[in-house]
């Protein structure tokens, strides 16, 4: 087993992707930042002395403490506190965990849906392809925020009020996922059209391999490169979409705030001089999205067969 692992590692080290990675400072820096953010977000319980969701530990006396380096700042709250006395840094990291979970789930949802529809429509063609592709056209004409608002509105109508806050995160994932799938469908359909005319697909057909096996065993692994690139850039978009929706008040509730919720809450205090409550979550969101985008750009350049 150990040996097998070592072999895989050797193969990764020999590969061109690894080579281009260690040659690209942007890729290294952005992935280091992302690693730190991911690590801190998912292990925040063990890293932070505060629990912003436990009201008993909060003290309103400590509310609106500015960042530690300002005159009135306190050393124990590095980035200050918000209106309820919650430590900003901990709250941001808890919030980014929710943003990341929503972003990842939404993008995986739309990736699976989009790739499935794109792969099958590219492979089978005909009327089925026409319908799927027109559907993506229609979907693309509806702005994704509007789509998400619509889904949220319908969900509010169906789900009872008590359940709503619990279900909010799933509604959000579905809303973002459903508005992002067309690009996956388009990219994977285009790649499938190229792959299905290659001789290895003909060879499998001649051998008698079934359509399903050809699609998922032979074509799917060969179209994953462009899909993963779109997925990475889509992840940043999904996180931003989540923040936008939460900012508009249709996302996750303030009791378990995501980055967008934090920005919205802080926004109320902006004009009374408590700038840090909205500024730090916003800057954090920018760094997160920017790093993902830079990594996505690097992936696109490296994995694009046309450039290499």
């Amino acid at each position, binding site marked *: 087993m150990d040996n097998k692992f070592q072999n895989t590692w050797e193969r990764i080290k020999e590969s061109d992707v690894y080579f281009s990675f260690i040659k690209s400072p942007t890729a290294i820096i952005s992935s280091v930042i992302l690693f730190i953010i991911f690590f801190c977000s998912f292990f925040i319980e063990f890293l932070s002395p505060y629990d912003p969701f436990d009201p008993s530990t909060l003290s309103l006396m400590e509310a609106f403490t500015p960042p530690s380096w300002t005159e009135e700042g306190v050393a124990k709250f590095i980035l200050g506190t918000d209106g309820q006395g919650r430590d900003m840094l901990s709250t941001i990291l808890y919030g980014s965990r929710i943003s990341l979970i929503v972003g990842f789930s939404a993008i995986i949802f739309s990736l699976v849906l989009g790739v499935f529809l794109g792969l099958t429509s590219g492979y089978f063609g005909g009327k089925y392809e026409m319908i799927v592709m027109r559907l993506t056209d229609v979907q693309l004409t509806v702005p994704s925020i509007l789509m998400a608002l619509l889904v949220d509105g319908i969900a509010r109508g169906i789900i009872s009020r008590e359940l709503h806050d619990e279900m909010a995160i799933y509604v959000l994932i579905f809303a973002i996922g459903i508005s992002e799938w067309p690009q996956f469908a388009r990219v994977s359909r285009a790649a499938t059209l190229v792959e299905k005319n*290659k*001789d290895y697909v*003909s*060879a*499998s057909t*001649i*051998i008698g*391999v079934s359509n399903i096996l050809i699609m998922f065993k032979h074509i799917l692994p*060969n179209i994953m490169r462009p899909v993963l690139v779109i997925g990475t850039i889509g992840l940043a978009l999904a996180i931003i979409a989540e923040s936008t929706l939460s900012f508009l008040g249709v996302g996750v509730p303030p009791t378990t705030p995501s980055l967008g919720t934090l920005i919205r809450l802080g926004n109320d205090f902006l004009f009374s001089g408590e700038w840090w409550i909205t500024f730090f979550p916003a800057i954090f969101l920018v760094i997160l999205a920017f790093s993902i985008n830079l990594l996505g750009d690097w992936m696109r350049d490296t994995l694009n067969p046309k450039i290499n």
Partner: protein
Amino acid sequence: MSFLKISNLSVDYKMRRETVHAAKNVNIEVSKGEILGLVGESGSGKSTVGNAIINLIDEPGKVSNGTIFLGDINVHKDPENIVNYRGNKIGLIFQDPQTSLNPIFTIGEQLIETIQTHLNLRLEEAKNKAIDLLKEVGIKDAEVRFNNYPHQFSGGMRQRVVISLALCCEPELLIADEPTTALDVSIQSQILDLIKRLTKERNLAVILITHDMGVISETTDRVAVMKNGDLVEIGPTKEILTNPKEIYTKSLVSSVPPTNKKIDRFIIIEKENKKQSETNIKILNRWTKKEIINQDLVQVKHLSKTFNDSFFTESSKNSVMAVDDVSFKIKEGQSFGLVGESGSGKSTIAKMIVNLFRPSKGDIFFDNVCITKIKSNKEMMKFRKQIQMIFQDPYSSLNGRLKVKDIVAEPIKLHNPSISLKDLNSYINDLLESVELTQQSADRYPHEFSGGQRQRISIARALATQPRLLICDEPTSALDVSIQAQILNLLKDLQEQLNLTILFISHDLPVVRQMCDRIAVLKNGKLCEVSKTEELFKNPSHEYTEELLRLMPKIESIYKL
């Protein structure tokens, strides 16, 4: 006195893992009025030498040593100055006429632009000169065609335009990099004649870069043979081809399929010390060998295929007749050749036989069963097993994400789901050894193999179902000539020992002559003639066949000089 003098030229490419020496200490001289052939297999550095002359070596390549003199100008001494010689003293012809002209300008505009860049002429004078040039390279109605766009010319005509562009500014040296590789045989000979004529008339020094020994023997005065960046041998063409001194040149010459006779096997010189043994076909004892009965295994009856290009209307105007009423029969155990130029419909016929396309009209019988009418999948599987195919492009015919053993295992498992793992592995090993690959290959991925080795994997996969009919669609046209000889030998051995019936599709007449018992000639989807190989080559009955035979470059023509 030689006009172009390359001395000690070395070109290095600094790659990630090593430095590739694309050219090592190459010395070549070319005089005016002479055509020098630069021949070698892929990766031999022949194009690198051509590019070094015009200083077109791309990063990360670098000329690390040596000088190139053009007359008395040192080309590399002053890199800025090269712009003055490019086009002016040196003309270039590239391989692909589709991409070497700019599609959004008329050829007239492109010619005038080139002429005015280099010569100080007024528009009217430049135009006259351009029309004269077009006439010189044999374009009819040059005044009218002057205003046409590149897409209005056929491939051969376009290559003529490219040549006229190269001649625009009265160059003294012409470098032609595989100028006819993308063209059909009949057009190839016209272009080569044109280059020969221009060399005489304009007293040019010409470097003709090619991999085709037939082209070399018919066109060039002297030839330089390259291998892995080394200049192996240089001398008069006749001497090199008839009496090669180096082993590499010998093996190269012996690998070329002769056009005037049928030989039993290709002699592979690199194996000189070993016995010229036949392939050890290990799958023989697994093979349920069919007795050859004297019957027609394949009968193609009045086959037609139209491709409908129209999306909105069903008009027959847009439809293309790819195959038009073709009938032939293949006897069991025979090898049958299907010959034609590009667009003649030969691949379409193959794809209809393996049921990738459905014919528009006509039927195909396999073992006296009409396979074009089979509807049920289960019925079809029986025939899928018996008909297998090898493809032209070794790079796209294997799935790069699967290991070799998984590629070969797929057909075995599909047609024999109950096979045990142990049995499967030994079957895969036998298959790989039968196509002369090592057992270690099983655990590797396709990208670790060369083109010839990939083609062997393809053959192993095709043999895994124990087919009776093997369709080879241009199996060697993407390969170097020495590799081609090995693959053709392998196919011959397999056919003899396994009693395979082979449908061999190719545009290359000499290759077909070596491989086939009977040959069908196709032109624009129509069948011209079907006859026995020797008969077809000795006295062709159709005039198109006659033309093809006359125009194909013959390596033997060197003996007649």
